[in-house]
């Protein structure tokens, strides 16, 4: 059902966990729907120096989280905000049509964490 790339990321997801004292946290989805992702980002000089996640969800949701964290790490905030759901699905070698909503959550969660960072920065100005 899934591409080998998806299964690799599902079996050995990268960047799983939480960041202590993160600069931004974003949470999307909820347990009722069967998918929930929490992303944590650490930002230095406008660059995402660390990205971690925790995900409750199906194989695609876990693989997408892992891929999004890989794609975002080391990128500037502007670059990371440009990552689209389609980019993530493409990097994973495609997803079954009924799993596309999982890839939508991935980029959304990352962007939510970045927006949270930007909002916090506004507050401390």
């Amino acid at each position, binding site marked *: 059902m899934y591409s080998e790339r998806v299964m690799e990321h599902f079996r050995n997801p990268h960047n799983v*966990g939480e960041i202590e004292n993160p600069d931004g946290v974003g949470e999307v989805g909820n347990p009722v729907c069967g998918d929930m992702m929490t992303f944590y980002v650490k930002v230095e000089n406008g660059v995402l120096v660390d990205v971690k996640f925790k995900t409750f969800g*199906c194989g695609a949701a876990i693989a997408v989280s892992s891929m999004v964290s890989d794609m975002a790490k080391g990128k500037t905030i502007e670059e990371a905000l440009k990552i689209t759901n389609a980019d993530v699905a493409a990097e994973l070698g495609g997803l079954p049509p009924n799993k596309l909503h999982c890839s939508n959550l991935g980029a959304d969660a990352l962007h939510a964490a970045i927006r949270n960072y930007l909002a916090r920065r506004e507050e401390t100005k």
Partner: protein
Amino acid sequence: MVPFLGFEFGNPASLHRGGEVPRRAIETARELVAALINARPGEVVFESSASEANNHAVKGLALSRMDKGRHIIISAIEHASVLEPARSLERLGFEVTRLPVDREGRVGPDTLAAAIRPDTILVSVMHANYEVGVIQDIAALAQVAHEHKALFHSDGTAAVGRVPIDVVGLGVDAYSFPAQSIYGPKGAAALFVKRGVRPVSLIEGGFQENNRRAGTENVAAIAGFGAAARVAGSELETWSADLARLSRRVVAELPRRLDHVVLTGPAAGRLPGHASFCVEFVEGEAMLLSLDDEGIAAASGSSCTARTLKASHVLLALGLPHALAQSSLVLTLGWESTDAEVDYFLDKLPPIVQRLREMSPLYARHLRGEDPYATRPGETCDNEHTHEEEN
């Protein structure tokens, strides 16, 4: 069965000799399948699948009695091949009552008695549920239906091959099950129809199956069905006892090896060979993929495995919260299953769940002492939205 895929290609409807061997094969199979459920051969209609048989029973029986009433009763935990025909009948002007079940999935005869009306023409309640392992008291339910002059159908797909079936003792008017319930080939199923009961044919235009289902028979699959019924008839008692013992082990031992595991369905008197749980804080499909990597084939009623992207209607009918229904795990043992395989499963599952929990934000919430299933106000499911769009 194999000759009918090759040189015995005659049509059982033909008068010439080529039709004779296939015709006899079908009638022998009919005797064997009938014997398995204590029916008369003439009461067995061969169909292509249990889904077809369920459609035939629900729509065919309702349409055959529509001059007597337009009210039908089914349970809330039926298979889609009963739920959807009932919905179609609603669109045609029938009224459908969906009976609630208790926390273990049981349909109470009292609940049926309270819902039944003078214009009720048909009641359909599945014998055993494939998702939560509950076995219904079909004899008691059929009696209630008959006291009110309604016909009674039961979907026996999950029960056949696991418990002995006696359609006379159960008192059903119709009963459906596929060949694969007893390890027969795909492509054949039986609809038992009690003598004197005439469901309207869904497939018309031929005299096959005594005018009850038109179309050339799937001779090879039906012959295989008969052979499978012969084996099941002699082995069923042993299978049933072995399956019950093995699944009782899973039901008793898994909660000892893993915390936050909730049994779904009844604690005792379950369908032999069936065990089902909700494993908290992890999603069903993720468990299935990991189990598959270990060579273990399991099922789940989570929305991610159900192609509808909605949590199982069965688990929700039992009163399980949506979030817990996403964590369902269903194990079905077969007649070749062994204690060693049960041990293997019991060893493999806990580390899989632990790995998934370590990446689960719900588990993190739980460890922090928060409500793991809290949702933000006003939040809706995107995936349900997707589902609507797909329709």
